[in-house]
């Protein structure tokens, strides 16, 4: 096994892993504020990508406004989800809220399918498709975009949750909504903000990934699944853990496919993930107990 191949596996793994990590970040935001696992998170990623394509193709917008528009619209959609589905179900148990998010994800998928059909679309690469070569491995400029955006978002979220009053208020809502309300935090507004913020993060992920992975109405399912796995692996509630968990998953898959068996690459990944989970039930970087359903 030559080093160039190994390096290529690593590069591929990190690229795919960023897609999982980006989705996982969105899970973290909503979980940290509400304790809900948002099954519609993958749908936010899909919406970002699809809306960018639609704005670009149907309305003929150039790439940058199309991307910004897609992110803005998806953020709005996140707010709508909270107002129309989550807020009316107030008082429901966590598992019922999970069912609500499952319903929402199916609804969003159905709506996108109805409006724009079942085809797959590709978004143009941001900085062209000429691969960057180093040490025998090839990487697309878009992969650098993805990695850079993942890291930037991660740093921004860390800063937001630890350094700003809003971020701290959102965390407080998850720990004890009653107490948070007592000290003057508007819990409802925080929940709304968390949905919009995570939709925004999801949409940014969606538009940045769409050139590489292409997009269609149903890409959110798999991303949501892998994003959830990344979250649990990294430790639920920890943005750093979520991103790291995503990267680890991606790298495991790439090496599994390249070195062991491409047919069983997902099985290999999940076996390792389960082994890690049994060893550390709260995830690799998780401190808080994660015993919510």
């Amino acid at each position, binding site marked *: 096994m*030559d080093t160039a*191949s190994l390096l*290529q*596996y690593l*590069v*591929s*793994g990190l*690229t*795919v892993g960023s*897609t999982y990590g980006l989705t996982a970040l969105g899970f973290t935001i909503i979980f940290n504020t509400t304790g809900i696992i948002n099954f519609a998170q993958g749908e936010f990623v899909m919406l970002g990508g699809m809306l960018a394509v639609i704005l670009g193709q149907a309305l003929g917008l150039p790439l940058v406004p199309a991307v910004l528009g897609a992110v803005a619209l998806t953020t709005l959609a996140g707010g709508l989800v909270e107002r129309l589905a989550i807020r009316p179900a107030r008082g429901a148990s966590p598992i019922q809220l999970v069912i609500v998010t499952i319903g929402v994800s199916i609804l969003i998928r159905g709506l996108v*399918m109805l409006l724009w059909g*079942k*085809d*797959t*679309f*590709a978004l143009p690469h941001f900085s062209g*498709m000429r*691969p960057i*070569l180093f040490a025998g491995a*090839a*990487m*697309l400029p878009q992969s650098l975009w993805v990695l850079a955006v993942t890291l930037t978002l991660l740093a921004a979220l860390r800063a937001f949750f630890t350094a700003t009053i809003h971020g701290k208020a959102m965390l407080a809502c998850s720990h004890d909504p009653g107490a948070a309300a007592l000290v003057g935090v508007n819990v409802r507004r925080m929940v709304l903000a968390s949905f919009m913020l995570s939709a925004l993060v999801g949409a940014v992920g969606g538009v940045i*990934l769409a050139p*590489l*992975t*292409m997009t*269609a109405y*149903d*890409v959110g*399912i*798999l991303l949501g699944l892998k994003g959830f796995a990344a979250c649990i692996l990294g430790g639920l509630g920890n943005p750093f853990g979520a991103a790291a968990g995503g990267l680890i998953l991606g790298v495991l*898959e*790439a*090496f599994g*496919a*390249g070195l062991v*068996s*491409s*047919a069983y*690459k*997902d099985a290999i990944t999940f076996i390792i993930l389960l082994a890690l989970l049994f060893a550390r039930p709260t995830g690799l970087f998780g401190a808080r107990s994660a015993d919510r359903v």
Partner: protein
Amino acid sequence: MKTVRLFAVLAAVCLMTLSLAPARAAEPVKIGAVLSVTGPASFLGEPEKNTLLLLQDRINAAGGILGRPLELVIYDDETDVNKCVLAVDKLLKKDRVVAVIGPTVSGNTLAVMNKFPAAKVPMISCAAAEKITRPVNPWVFKTPQSDRQAVARILDHLRQAGLSRVAILTVSDGFGQAGRAVLAEMLPAGGFTLVADEIYGPKDTDMTPQLTKIKGLAPDAIVCWGTNPGPAVIARNRVQLGIRTPLYMSHGVASNKFIELAGEAAEGLLLPAGRMVAVEQIEDGNPQKDVLAAYVADYAARFGAPPSTFGGYAHDALALVRAAIETSGSAEPRAIRDALEATTGFVGATGVFNFSPEDHNGLDPSSFVMVGIENGAWKVLR
């Protein structure tokens, strides 16, 4: 008292209508269809459904079948085997159709096939698997070519180009699995060396690990068996990794969507495809030319885009049933089946069908041509 009388009158009216119904002159010919209009195989099922709707209007505008209007009952199985079974039951037991078109995918077809001999209704599947018509089930037919015929075309081309060490990269769904089995059988039998047998998932978005591994084995050619969007990703990854080995695709990507998705990375790729991908390039005198030209033009006029070759499977299925009803002069299921089995020289969108009691597919490799992609367009290779 009044209400009772009212009910009595209503009941009498209902009874009369019921008893009169069968006596109406032009009772429609009911043909059912189960297609994967949504779900993973919607890229097949949707054009199939559109095609059926198009043909229904065309047939009814021309006076129907045997002077009776054609009524299609189309159900979507969502590419789900349970829903497919339910839909077939509904067609056979509730709607009482005289023939069934579909299902779209092989797995669903295999799941429902055994219901048809019991119901004594013919089925014309739009799925490709060989197991559908081999061994022959008297009540089951299919319109797509078998993978074997597509692979035969690719092997001919490989042989002419003098390529012998071949790597295959197939998708882990029913389509890829069938192609992989045929490739794994026919490549060694044809004197080729199978140097790599890699798999990717239908939803995977990056195949560079598999291609890196293949690159390291330095094959003469790569054959990829899948349907959109996977092969487009593979074409792009191939360019990204700077692989110059010729890449053959399956007929599963023979639609303009593939060229759109793969973009520049599609240049120079080769694949076997039905003649429909490039109607204007069909040689004069080929009987399919007129059939395809009319179909493509009508479809584009109604749905705003040219049909994919998959729509042709449904086109031929309905056209075959219609012809069978008209030759036998009866819309009874058994008469349709007998007439279908006796059909020869029928010119369809996919090829020329010659059914017999031993062959319920009726196509040969000549229904495929090898095409290449040049400057973002299909080019038939001769």
